[in-house]
């Protein structure tokens, strides 16, 4: 039980996907200009990534490893995730138009978030079992959403600052990301009793 908590804690804070593992930076930089979009992106990613981790575990352990098809891992994972994204879109469009309106535009963007492939691959590398994979996926995407939303909050405020000309836009955003990453280093060690 406590190992699950540490996995979750580790994924959300200590080894935050974006700030420590450095995955998923394109959406981190791209969809963080407004709080609202950041929230939408976070929610959509959380959904897809958690589902993706579960499915990729199943595929890896029931399909690829028994048939010695490990060399198809990258391909099958990315295709699976693309499929999940598409199906999710279909399903929520049918079941909940409201949700579709909120998340719809972010879903297609998710496939180019390298965390959705990176985290399932890390699951394999870290030899997580099914439950751990799910938790790791969920924790990572919550970590992603957390970083994204906090970053968006900061950026909304920064919009009003008199940032030196050459640093406006992406440079200052990156430096802010760096300071966030620095702050998250403070969590180092909290997961070591694993």
């Amino acid at each position: 039980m406590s190992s699950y908590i540490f996995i979750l804690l580790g994924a959300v804070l200590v080894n935050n996907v974006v700030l420590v593992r450095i995955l998923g930076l394109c959406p981190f930089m791209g969809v963080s200009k407004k709080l609202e979009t950041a929230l939408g992106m976070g929610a959509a990613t959380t959904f897809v990534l958690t589902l993706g981790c579960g499915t990729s575990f199943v595929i890896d352990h029931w399909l690829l490893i028994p048939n010695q098809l490990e060399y198809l891992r990258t391909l099958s994972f990315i295709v699976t995730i693309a499929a999940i994204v598409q199906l999710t879109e279909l399903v929520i469009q049918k079941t909940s138009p409201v949700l579709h309106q909120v998340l719809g535009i972010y879903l297609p963007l998710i496939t180019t978030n390298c965390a959705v492939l990176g985290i399932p691959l890390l699951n394999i590398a870290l030899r997580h079992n099914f439950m751990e994979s799910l938790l790791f996926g969920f924790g990572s995407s919550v970590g992603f959403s957390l970083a994204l939303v906090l970053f968006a909050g900061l950026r909304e405020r920064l919009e009003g600052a008199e940032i030196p000309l050459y640093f406006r836009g992406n440079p200052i955003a990156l430096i802010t990301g760096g300071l966030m990453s620095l702050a998250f280093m403070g969590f180092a060690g909290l997961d070591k009793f694993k």
Partner: protein
Amino acid sequence: MNIAFNSPYFRKPASVRSVMLRVLLALLPGIAAYVWFFGAAILVQIALASAAALAGEAAILRLRDKPVWLFVSDGSALVTGWLIALSFPPIAPWWMVVVATLIAVVIVKHLYGGLGQNPFNPAMAAFCIMIVAYPQLMSQWPAAGHHGDFAAQMQLIFGGGERQLDAVTMATALDTLRTALHSADSHATVHGVTSSQPTFGMFGGNGWEWVAAAYLLGGVWLVQQGIITWHIPVAFLAALAAAAGLAHGIAPDRFAGPLFHLFSGGAMLGAFFIATDPVSGATTPRGKLIYAAGIALLAWIIRTWGAYPDGIAFATLLMNICAPLIDLNTQPPVFGHKNDKKP
């Protein structure tokens, strides 16, 4: 007719400079206690930090084509410099404080537009950068009562080459406690450690407890002066005491008590001088409570389980990140809208 400025036509005589100067003034009791227990080296560090802060500020203002004197004389860079000096080990090599201050002023403050616009606490960001880069140099602290060894301290600060440490340094109370409790095959208890090691004082770190008490004094004066409100220090200290007290109550052998936590490390400095940085912190009354309590809780967690002996700096940065969202969600009700439902 002169209509270059509009109403109100007269103002209260207040200025950023007087605010900052009073913050510096409030630090003096703490500095005095610091010198008393740990020698005059800290004064050298403060001088170094001040020089670096003013020079860095002047240079970057010049580059940015901003009025140099107006901003250099506002005193905010001095506050940043002093706080860096006070949070670094007083026997750290001279270049560390200088580099840290320059990072704080040039990168963390001015790349965001300078005074009032930086979302991160410059002093604490610089501290975090330096402790990540130089953990060893950042954890060499002098032992209390060595204030006679000014020459030795100067040798450590300015002398290059191998540092002869064992004579003057000593792990801090927080570090010692942490080390002892984390060791795999030790059966150390809090009481056992604190009562046997010279680094512990009556209720905090030896010597440090009195420095902290002096900071408390200066901080209370700041509250009285109206420069800071009670929200942040009270929430900070209460949350730290509550977390420590709860854990100590459950497992007194594994967790130090509230008094120890309040009076060691950077807690007091943090509560009154660091968490209260108006620029990078939360600003609404409720927001301030959440913000300060957040710093205290994170700092306690990092102290207790994390990799760093003290967590005030990291906790401050972490809550800096949260501050805009805290503010956004704790806006006080506007006149006439007190009974409105939250959207």
